[in-house]
């Protein structure tokens, strides 16, 4: 369950030092696009040391490795897979890549005696990945899928716009694939880091479509993303009232009851439970 994931360049010690203060639900320590080819080795070492230093942490630790079509990904995996790592983010993911990565993680986890299963977030950045997204969502290690609209636009030879009309189809593909598997649909980053209103609007749109979370490419974006993707105070209050009414109805042997003149049945109760789960997870209760 996520709202915000913050990208941090893996080769920037100053940003890494403060990366955990911005209240994102997870950090994406980037070894891919944010790191110049000449700094791949040092970034790998820095991220590895950073993860080792986080003996206890409440944030999800994600590393975006280099793609499986590059000569770097194996070294990336060897360096960063450790007990403190939660998730690998895989660029330009296709079904075969996720299958290969899953096998590699099986081996490394066993070799390093890691006592948990490292998860995978595939990034949908290719037209082929959009077509394969339903299969990608079914992999056991995959617990979320990120739409990478910038690279996808390049692959589609289309122009990215702020309203995002051009990415409606892949957005829905990601959302439906994820919702079908009960995993997180994670929205593409909003790249204008100075446009707070634009970010807020983009988050609202993504949330309305069904996205659970969004990635941030600047720390200042996190609070806006969290605000939009958190249950509102009003919704939390409503959900509490639904659960309270449900308890009373159960005591009276009723499966269906009314609240504020509206019928409350299982789907609505489930929605209320979901809101309260999120509120609890994000410490909003």
């Amino acid at each position: 369950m996520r709202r915000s994931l913050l990208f941090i360049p893996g080769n920037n010690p100053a940003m890494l030092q403060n990366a955990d203060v911005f209240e994102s639900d997870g950090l994406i320590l980037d070894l891919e696009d944010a790191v110049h080819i000449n700094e791949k080795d040092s970034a790998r070492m820095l991220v590895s040391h950073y993860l080792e230093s986080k003996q206890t942490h409440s944030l999800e630790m994600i590393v975006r490795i280099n793609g499986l079509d590059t000569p770097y990904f194996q070294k990336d995996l060897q360096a960063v897979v450790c007990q403190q790592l939660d998730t690998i983010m895989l660029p330009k993911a296709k079904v075969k890549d996720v299958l290969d990565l899953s096998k590699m993680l099986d081996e490394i986890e066993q070799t390093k005696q890691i006592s948990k299963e490292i998860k995978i977030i595939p990034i949908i950045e290719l037209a082929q990945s959009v077509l394969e997204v339903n299969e990608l969502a079914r992999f056991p290690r995959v617990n979320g899928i990120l739409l990478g609209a910038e690279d996808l636009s390049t692959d589609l030879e289309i122009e990215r716009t702020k309203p995002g009309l051009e990415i409606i189809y892949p957005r829905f593909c990601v959302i439906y694939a994820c919702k079908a598997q009960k995993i997180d649909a994670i929205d593409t980053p909003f790249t204008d880091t100075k446009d707070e209103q634009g970010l807020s609007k983009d988050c609202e749109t993504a949330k309305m479509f069904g996205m659970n979370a969004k990635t941030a490419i600047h720390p200042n974006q996190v609070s806006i993303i969290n605000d939009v993707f958190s249950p509102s105070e009003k919704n939390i209050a409503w959900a509490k009232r639904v659960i309270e009414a449900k308890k009373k109805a159960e005591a009276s042997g009723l499966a269906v009851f009314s609240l504020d003149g509206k019928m409350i049945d299982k789907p609505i109760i489930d929605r209320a439970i979901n809101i309260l789960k999120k509120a609890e997870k994000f410490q909003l209760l």
Partner: protein
Amino acid sequence: MKNSLQREVPVGFKPFVSPTAFQKKPRIMIPEKNTNHQIVFFESLEAMFKEMGISDGMTLSFHHHLRNGDEVLNQTAKVVEKMGLKNLHFAPSSIFPNNACLSSLIKNKNITSITTNYLNGDVAKTISQGYLENLLIMETHGGRARSIEAGELAIDFAILATPAVDCMGNGTGSLGKNACGALGYAIPDLKFSKKVILVTDTVVDKIDNPEFPHSYVDAVVVLPSIGEQKGIVSGTTKITTDPVGLKIARDAAKLLHELGMIKTGFSMQTGAGGTSLAVADFVKKQMLAQNIVGSFASGGITAYYVQMLKLGLFEKLYDVQCFDLEAVTSYRDNDHHFAMSSSEYGNPMEPNPIVNNLDFVILGATEIDLDFNVNVTTDSNNWLIGGSGGHSDTAHGAKVTIITTNLIKSRMPIIKERVTTCTTPGEDVDVLVTERGIAINPKRQDLLAQLRNSRLNIKPIDELLTLCYQITSKPQVVVHDKKIIGVVKYRDGTIIDSLYQVKK
């Protein structure tokens, strides 16, 4: 001798006891000067020096309203050097990097004593290295006003940069090519110095409502230039874009919200730094969203507060100095933008200084310790880098004093077990807001009770220190030189700490 904070006090000075000790003392005021004779106009500082009889050992005061654009202090220093005057006591309200020329006068014993409220740049380095013959006296803005009116800081000549002067000898900060707005820091000098010299580069026919009425003035010096107006925009006067600074500001604003401090009629002051202005920005958003109008904002005024006044978010601004040119214009044109003298601002002996009416103040810190004592005077190696200014005055007066600072700067923890230099006593500091948590002074049980069910990340200050050490490890303790080079006066004139020569 040690004061109540266990800080060394040199012989001949009174030790700090508590922030409220001054309340038991009577207000001492020497008679205000009044000059009704003909005002003399000079065309050079040197001519004025000779005619007015400025000589060895005298005390000359200055204000810093032109900040890093001021040339009056520098040009006066050149005359002192040329005339070979010795053992002078300079008492500028602040010293800025552009006043670097004072360093050679300190080394050559032209200047042997300095009293000021703030200093950085080359002069600060020179004094840190032990070149000033007598002890440096650091005061607060309100403390300086008290000290001057009490005759404790006895000024022979107040040499006051004045952006415009009329033929009668009235002076104002609102007109002229180097208009700097409010002249609040110079008012005590004007009223209580033995002689007052206005130095200007603009003479006009008539000034209505002058900040410097001619009745206090003895002479006017008209120079081609008193400085560079754009130099008053020194330091950071824009909202920070640094994510850590914004995180701190956002949390400070959340804290103010949870304490219920943003309400109709509230009053506030922040510094001009980027993080402080970011707090003001978050407060502004709350005010707009909830249709809240505050009573006043005060202090050094920036364009940001001018904009809030224009939006009707505050009924008035109390301005002791303008930090930028928008503030200068607003001070001149807006009837709700008021000047205040440094005495009206923060003099502890005033019956009701503005600082006492503040609901909250947002301040910075170079260091803060486990007792919430704050250092804004030196760095951790004893180099002078600033001074109280209005820090101690507002910290004491405001109902809630909030320090906003990064927990770690340049890999150094900002929280110390004991601050290198104590500028503001912890008793007057209520809250510390950092990017990794908020600490409330245990003396403010009322605030802790109010925040009991808060979702804010509130931690004891020693936990924040432990967190620092986990990231930076424990820094080696800096052993300072034993030679005392100055003292930090609390606003009541007692010594809150001594200043030490840097280790060579």
